[in-house]
């Protein structure tokens, strides 16, 4: 049984099908990348999986249990965490407090929550910034704070929405290492990304969306040579 099953999911905003009839599986332990041009419906798909939107048609199952229709906090409790493309740190809280607020989900006492949080900060390389108010953090570290917060909820599956966008090459390398570290911990990853270099380096499988539809899926090498994908990205003439 796959960890996450997206079954024939569609969502309509007015007459527009932002996502239509998309189906795929995420297997335990893999890194699945979702790619596609701007407006392809990638983040909308995340919002459906994460529970912000209920799909108009189809269903999403996690660990064999239907989760579409549940609220985001219920889905998070079941072990599915996410980050946001537009980072949403709890601005007037310190970096450590941001993470503690998340780790309380699986910890009874503040001492435990803090211990878990410090460990996660260590893992994401934010230990030195623990006491900084997160408003003052540079973008690269804010993106990592997003990952840290999601990790602190103790997920089985983590959805990363453009965690690499806007990073400089040095920060990019740090983040790639973090993603590999997350995989090494046995956490499954679903990632939206535009950086092809990153995608090719880390992902096990790729699903390609365009205009809300799945146009291809497969191993990175297969997808890269798929004519439909090339057309979607570069236009028909190439």
């Amino acid at each position, binding site marked *: 049984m796959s960890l996450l099953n997206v079954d024939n999911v569609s969502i309509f905003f007015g007459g527009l099908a932002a996502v239509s009839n998309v189906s795929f599986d995420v297997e335990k332990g893999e890194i699945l990348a979702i790619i596609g041009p701007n407006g392809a419906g990638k983040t909308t798909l995340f919002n459906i999986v994460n529970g912000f939107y209920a799909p108009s048609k189809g269903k999403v199952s996690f660990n064999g249990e239907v989760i579409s229709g549940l609220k985001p906090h219920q889905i998070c409790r079941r072990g599915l965490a996410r980050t946001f493309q537009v980072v949403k740190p709890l601005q007037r809280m310190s970096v450590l407090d941001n993470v503690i*607020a998340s780790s309380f989900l699986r910890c009874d006492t503040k001492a435990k929550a803090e211990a878990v949080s410090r460990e996660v900060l260590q893992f994401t390389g934010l230990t030195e910034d623990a006491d900084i108010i997160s408003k003052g953090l540079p973008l690269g570290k804010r993106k990592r704070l997003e990952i840290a917060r999601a990790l602190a909820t103790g997920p089985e599956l983590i959805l990363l929405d453009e965690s690499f966008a806007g990073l400089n090459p040095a920060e990019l390398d740090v983040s790639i290492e973090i993603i590999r570290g997350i995989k090494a911990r046995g956490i499954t990853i679903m990632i939206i990304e535009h950086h092809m270099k990153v995608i090719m380096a880390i992902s096990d499988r790729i699903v390609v969306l365009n205009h809300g539809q799945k146009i291809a899926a497969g191993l990175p090498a297969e997808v890269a040579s798929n004519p439909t994908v090339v057309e979607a990205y570069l236009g028909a003439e190439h």
Partner: protein
Amino acid sequence: MKRYFPIIVLAVLCVLPLVGLNTYLMHIVILSVMWAVCGMAWNLLGGYCGQVSFGHAAFFGTGAYCSGILAMKFKISAWYGFLLSVPLNVAVALSMGLIVLRLRGPYFVLATLAIGEVFRIFAENVVDLTNGNLGIMIERTWVEKTQFYYIVLGLGLLAYAVVKFITESRWGYYFVAIREDQDAAESLGINTTLYKTIALTVSAVLTGFAGSFYMVYMGYIDPQIVFSLGEISILMIMVVMVGGVATFWGPTVGAVIMVILAELIRSIPRVGVAYQTLFGILLIVIIIYLPNGLVGDFPKIRRMFQRGAA
């Protein structure tokens, strides 16, 4: 030093009546503590949880009328109003929450404002129960201020302990998380509706205690006093804004300043009647120059004075 600060404050407050303050000064101290309770209660919801309520008079008035109606209609001690106000304000908070907690930002503010007014108009018109605009007058238990002072001090301690306990626990973290970003909080596994409801309910019960105390202490209430938008709901917000939103001592500092200021301004001939106008101006000044209140911006104030001295 900082650790002992609350104990020192408590010790000073405990022996305060022994100093032999006159009745008027005791009255001001009692009102300050009462407003500190209101401020701490409002701060829990508005400051920490970020849900700015313009309708807290609903809870204050409900508390006050619990005491008043028990004494007037049922001829039992108004003090039982404190007990009655708990289930009643929980019920009010839960039903109010059902309506307002699904709204965000300005819509939440407007909805709470409207509900506060609904309570006032209700109390004005259900004459059989509330005496309407005639109000309720009860006999006060003591003529002396000292006993009232210790009771309101007890309420203050209760509010202090509740706020301290909550803000340092899981709830406190969740409240602030909700304030900072509701969507992020929700996706981090926080049941935002539940925790907003908790914040509202605890805040309502504490505010209700202050209202019950107002009844037994002042001996007279009417809907335009205890359900007042300007004199209760907005003053509660001002207390917190002046002192410092989401700060621990802010509401207390704000309460002392606002009560003293109100008394001072009202005693000025002619200008006194316009004290609400002056409060408005004060609020604008505070928002511009000390957006985090006197406590929140204390370092800024200290720097200002140091520069002045040098």
